[in-house]
């Protein structure tokens, strides 16, 4: 019973909060560039507008184009269940398994790449080819980072990780700090932020993520944008909830959950601001320089492991 309540709260909260973070990042980048930037609720308005528009499909597309948006959203939503934002339920049949969480996101990426190819346009093809290449290169970095965290916290289940971080204040533990740096780099890569890929631009040669959803329109595009936003919130939530867990509650009491929601909103927006500044500081790096960045994240995770082994 407690699990059903958890799913409802967690999903609704994540759907509500993620567009906020997206527009907050846009606001910060605009502020750094000296402009006022779009209103905070701009992403909500965009979703609403897109839902009302008609769908336009290219003649070459097939079944894959039509089912990908749905696959995107449902896999990301199920992945969101393994990252408790507000309160930690009793573990149910390994939902929080790290590998499951990562691979659910890989499914979303897999079908998005196929959709990119389906329209038969050069940009879609280029987008999915680059997306699949760099997600393949980053995959070991991600898994080693989570493995390092698993080594530090002695468990491979996200729910238990958050539980353990709840009891012992981990902010002081250096190993966790190192993994959170590599987790932040992974966040930048997975949500295709500036050094890896430019989310705002539609300039053919520079966009990777945007190229794949170039052919989408109307409700499909809305679904794709929402799943992208939710994914970003999940990746923000993991380092945040482990480093600064004080908002999280173990029991589903109403005041506790409300407090947790507010605290997560604040923490999340703080990270969003950091991302905004981070993006403004860098220019998009050359494509084949990226593996260097990934190796940096890998270096951090290996140092965590060495740190853990030696101590």
């Amino acid at each position, binding site marked *: 019973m407690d699990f059903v309540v958890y799913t409802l709260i967690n999903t609704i909260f994540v759907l509500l909060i993620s567009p906020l973070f997206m527009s907050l990042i846009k606001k910060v980048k605009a502020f750094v560039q000296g402009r006022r930037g779009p209103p905070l609720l701009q992403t909500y308005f965009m979703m609403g507008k897109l*839902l*009302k528009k*008609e*769908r*336009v*499909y*290219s*003649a*070459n597309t*097939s*079944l*894959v184009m039509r089912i990908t948006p*749905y696959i995107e959203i449902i*896999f990301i*939503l*199920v992945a969101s269940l393994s990252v408790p934002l507000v309160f930690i339920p009793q573990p*149910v*049949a*390994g*939902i929080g*398994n790290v*590998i*499951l969480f990562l*691979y659910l996101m*890989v499914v979303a*990426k*897999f079908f998005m790449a*196929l959709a990119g*190819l*389906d*329209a*038969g*346009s*050069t940009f*879609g*093809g*280029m987008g*999915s*080819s680059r997306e*699949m*290449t760099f*997600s*393949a290169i980053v*995959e*070991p970095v*991600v*898994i*080693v980072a989570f*493995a390092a965290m*698993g080594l530090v916290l*002695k468990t*491979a289940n996200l729910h238990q990780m958050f539980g353990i971080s709840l009891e012992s204040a981990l902010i002081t533990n250096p190993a966790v700090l190192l993994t959170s740096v590599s987790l932040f780099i992974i966040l930048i890569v997975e949500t295709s932020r500036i050094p890896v890929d430019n989310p705002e631009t539609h300039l053919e040669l520079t966009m990777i993520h945007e190229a794949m959803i170039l*052919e989408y329109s109307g*409700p499909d595009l*809305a*679904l794709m944008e929402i799943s992208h936003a939710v994914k970003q919130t999940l990746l923000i939530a993991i380092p945040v909830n482990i480093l600064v867990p004080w908002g999280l509650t173990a029991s589903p009491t109403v005041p506790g959950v409300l407090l947790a929601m507010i605290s997560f909103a604040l923490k999340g927006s703080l990270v969003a601001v950091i991302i905004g500044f981070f993006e403004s500081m860098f220019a998009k790096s050359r494509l*084949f320089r990226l593996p260097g960045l990934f190796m940096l994240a*890998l270096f951090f995770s290996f140092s965590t*492991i060495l740190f853990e*082994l030696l101590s």
Partner: protein
Amino acid sequence: MQTNLFLAGLILYPAITIAALATSSKAKMFFRQTILWLILLANLMFLVFSVITFISGRTFYITPYQLTASLQFDFAVDRLGAFFMGTTSLVAVSVSCYSLRYVEHSGTDAGKNVMAAITSLFILSMLLVIASANTFSFLFWWEIMSIASFFLVMHERDKSETRKSALFYLIMTQMSTVFLMFGFLAIYAVTGSFNIQPVSGISLPLASAIFLSLFIGFIIKAGVMPFHKWLPYAHSASPSNISALMSGVMIKVAIYGIVRYLMIVFSPVWWWGLIILVFGTFSALLGVIYALKEHDLKKLLAYHSIENIGIILIGIGLYAIFRSYGLQDLATLSLLGGLFHTFNHAMFKSLLFLTAGSVVNATGTRNIEEMGGLLKTMPYTGVLFLVGSVAIAALPPLNGFVSELMIFQSFLQSFTVVGPLLKIVMFAGLALFALTSALAAACFVKAFGIVFLAMPRSEAARKATEVSPYMLFGSAILAVCCIFSGIFSYQIFMALGYNLAIPDMMLIGLLLLIALITVWLAVRVFANRKTRISETWGCGLTSQNSRMEYTASGFSEPILTIFRPVYRTNKWSERWFFDAGNSLFKNGHAAIRTFKLFEEKIYLPVARFVQRFSLYVANLQDVDLDTYILYSFIAIIVLVLTMGWLV
């Protein structure tokens, strides 16, 4: 019940072979169909047999035939044997159902009959290798398996490429028999008996030597990295239903050998496990990297077999390490991961080969650069290929993910337990394993995307039509198995008595379904339902043709540049000029050549050396009479000398 099923199968297969061979020249299509239906029936019988034995858990003994006192065919099917026989017969059922119509495509009537005959012998030999309880019958059926598969690879023998790969295949299988025989005979020298039972009282160096020779023998047949080169050639040369059988099941027989000898005959030492792990990891990684540059559909799938065999070996290697350290539960987890991946790979790889066979038949070419847009003309094959690709790319709801998850799980849980040096190895293994499965996903996006999506790139692809329902049904059986064994994996393991700490895929599937329904309803209610068809955005270019699309080599080019040191691609170009001063350029062409490391550096030099040395020895003997007598004279003198000194 089991005995008469086993015996019935034992009699039916050879009867089919003899009947088909006897009437090979005259038999028309009707007779061949009955032969194929009989093979299907025989496979079904063995499937039922292995399922019963697997569930009953009791070992099934039978000695149907005795050649002499010491040489007899006794078969013992325990749970491990039943599992492998079940996988084999399941794949065999779907392949024989598929080949009911597939066989009609190629070759003459006689050729097709011979192929059907040898296929039944091939399937029987695989089943009996797994079932055999003593090394004599193991070697007996192992050799028949090799020779039968050699003849099947030779089916389209008028193509020179088939001849080359068939010869290469035969030499590799004979080499694997050399190592196997060395191992088995050494065991016979120690224990004095042929039957496979725990070997005790062996000095470690001898046990390691025997294990290594058996291991090399098995990995040659399994197509693991240094010895993998025959696999892509053999699979692309042989007809698709045969390559489905070969890569789906024959390779697993080699894996069965390794597991049987590791689990029962020897008690593994930790560095044995390390060797298996290292071979597995590099075989997996290089397998998928080479698959990425491959544009021949069947070769691409063959390289993926190498990758998946590598993954299975990782599971088995981990099992050996954990068992030598006494971590029983981790050992069972990794072994079950390896074995479950064997089953999964048999399912989705045969599915992919069968659907690839239909695609190759429909378009008449194996090169994916000339395909495209087949999902619209061949929807069912497309969907089945998609299920296969999702399974092989280890994406959650399906079975590929569950077995890779179990191996990931044993990697992750091992950190808290194993010694420091081994932890570093584990981390490196984990990283490489993750890279492999991610690259596999990328490769299958390329394969599925280029073959089935967007616009057809050649006339043949445009005119492709859906294949016959038999072929679809054959592949559908495998697809259903993939989905079923993926979603209910947790329940299956619980039923078998192993409760493992893996997520319950049925729950995940349920959640996905609920999410799908809610989202679908939400979109149906809120969103606008009008859809419009127009043409793809091409920066204002109006004429939209297939040359605008991304090609397979384009898709894999970024990965090729990142992994350049592995491929050691060299850019080759030649130019012709009108004038002597090389100023007026006439024409020329350039190419990026990937350096075939294994072929150029290992196989060809060895082959050339043997050729040169044997030419030298042969010329030594094409001489006249005087030199003959001179040789005898020298031989006698040497003999007399040594005897004088020795005696």
